[in-house]
């Protein structure tokens, strides 16, 4: 039996419509300032006209700009994470780092643009790099190339739980001794004409509200759907001994990961499957439900999704749920699809570190039937020891992560 290793987080980076980490991201989330805004006029205009679109912060050097937007976001977030973990200036330390990326649809902008050339503009050819820039593992590969990361390079795709799975699988790889250090997270940028049409057709998207920034309202009785965002988040996971050996800052210990599949319906979530994933994460962490101090929920803002998630939490947490803050940050950064799990775990770790629970923004009519303390009033100060982040995806895939303050023992 190989030796088991404790896994810690030594840095993270993210980019969203409301800024970066490090930067303004957590501040904006805590202030409830939504990044959902009108999409710039396009021709033809898609049926969905708003999103949490990133307007600044993407690395703007020509080498980054050449890539698909999803890869650009990954390169930016990966650089921020490596810098925070003190690995950006040490090529030797970076060599063995693995890269685990979650992305729901991969670099879709490049393919969308190539279809537009062929079908709409009636051009006779597409750029030679169309295919290499469109492959699902292009973000993971380009991050490895840019920063010289020669470890295992994996891409996970289970829709909106993709990056949570990437982080969980990376945690296992370190725990079981296959890697010492992994850059794990996700990226997504799906605000393309075709994809916006597809979401519109599915009727899961919110209608524009007044103001438009209030269009996504998780856990509110008047919620009517999700709002798409784009972004990327990466964490540096390391074995505790390797983090200590290099004197790295330790933000938290990753202690639990649960993964399951509803196996009931391609889009409608099922509480039974979610409960399995939550209990698995608790069991792996060796924790009881009452040990959890904060849950960053999946909380997309769809009527059915939020209700099923509340039922799952109620089944697992029982009477503890009344005292357990559960918030969704998607009203601010939008639904980041495959990148959501990573960015939301980062926000959970920021909450743990700063002692501030982010609110559920736009929860203007708290849905009391859900039985949740959804932190509707605004950010709340609290001493947190243990936090949980849930991702429940189309396809029925569920991924739950638990992190806690490093206990010295």
């Amino acid at each position: 039996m190989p030796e088991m290793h404790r896994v810690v987080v030594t840095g993270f980076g993210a980019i969203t419509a409301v800024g970066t980490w490090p930067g303004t991201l957590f501040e904006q989330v805590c202030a409830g300032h939504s990044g959902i805004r009108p999409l710039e006029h396009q021709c033809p205009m898609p049926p969905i006209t708003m999103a949490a679109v990133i307007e600044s912060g993407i690395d703007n050097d020509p080498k980054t700009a050449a890539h698909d937007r999803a890869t650009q976001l990954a390169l930016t977030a990966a650089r921020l994470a490596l810098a925070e973990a003190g690995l950006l200036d040490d090529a030797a330390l970076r060599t063995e780092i693995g890269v685990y990326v979650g992305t729901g649809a991969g670099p879709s902008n490049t393919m969308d643009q190539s279809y537009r050339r062929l079908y709409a503009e009636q051009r006779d050819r597409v750029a030679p790099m169309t295919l290499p820039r469109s492959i699902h593992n292009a973000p993971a590969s380009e991050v490895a190339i840019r920063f010289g990361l020669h470890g295992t390079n994996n891409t996970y795709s289970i829709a909106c739980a993709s990056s949570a799975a990437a982080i969980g699988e990376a945690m296992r790889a370190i725990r079981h001794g296959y890697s010492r250090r992994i850059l794990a997270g996700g990226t997504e940028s799906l605000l393309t004409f075709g994809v916006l049409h597809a979401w519109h057709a599915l009727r899961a998207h919110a209608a524009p509200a007044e103001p438009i920034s209030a269009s996504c309202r998780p856990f509110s009785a008047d919620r009517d759907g999700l709002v798409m965002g784009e972004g990327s988040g990466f964490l540096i996971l390391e074995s505790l001994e390797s983090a200590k050996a290099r004197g790295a800052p330790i933000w938290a210990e990753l202690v639990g990961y649960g993964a399951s599949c509803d196996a009931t319906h391609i889009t409608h979530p099922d509480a039974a499957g979610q409960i399995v994933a939550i209990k698995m994460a608790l069991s792996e962490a060796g924790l009881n439900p009452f040990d959890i101090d904060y849950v960053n929920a999946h909380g997309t803002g769809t009527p059915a999704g939020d209700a099923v998630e509340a039922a799952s939490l109620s089944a697992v947490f029982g009477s503890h749920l009344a005292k357990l803050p559960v918030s969704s940050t998607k009203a601010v950064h939008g639904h980041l699809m495959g990148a959501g799990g990573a960015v939301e775990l980062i926000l959970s770790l920021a909450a743990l570190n700063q002692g501030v629970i982010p609110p559920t923004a736009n929860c203007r009519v708290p849905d009391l039937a859900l039985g949740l303390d959804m932190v509707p009033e605004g950010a709340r100060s609290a001493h947190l020891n243990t936090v949980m982040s849930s991702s429940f995806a189309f396809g029925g895939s569920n991924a739950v992560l638990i992190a806690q303050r490093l206990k010295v023992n």
Partner: protein
Amino acid sequence: MVYFMSDIEAQLYQLLIKELPTAPEGLTRESTLESIGMDSLSTIEFMFQIEDHFGIRFDQTGTPPKTLGDVFDEVHAKLEHA
């Protein structure tokens, strides 16, 4: 950098640096594409981007360009006859 002072060459330079693995230094007309880190794939992407940007088409026959000077001369020739 003196070779990239004209508008056309400045535009070519912007297209070129997207395809190079590292930031270029000391480029001259005599720099071979291979010596500045271009491989076969990045070269065809570079040529495609030039064609798309300037609305020209290079001849598919003849000797492929070896140096930056070869590329720039071909662009100038095509633009003059456009």
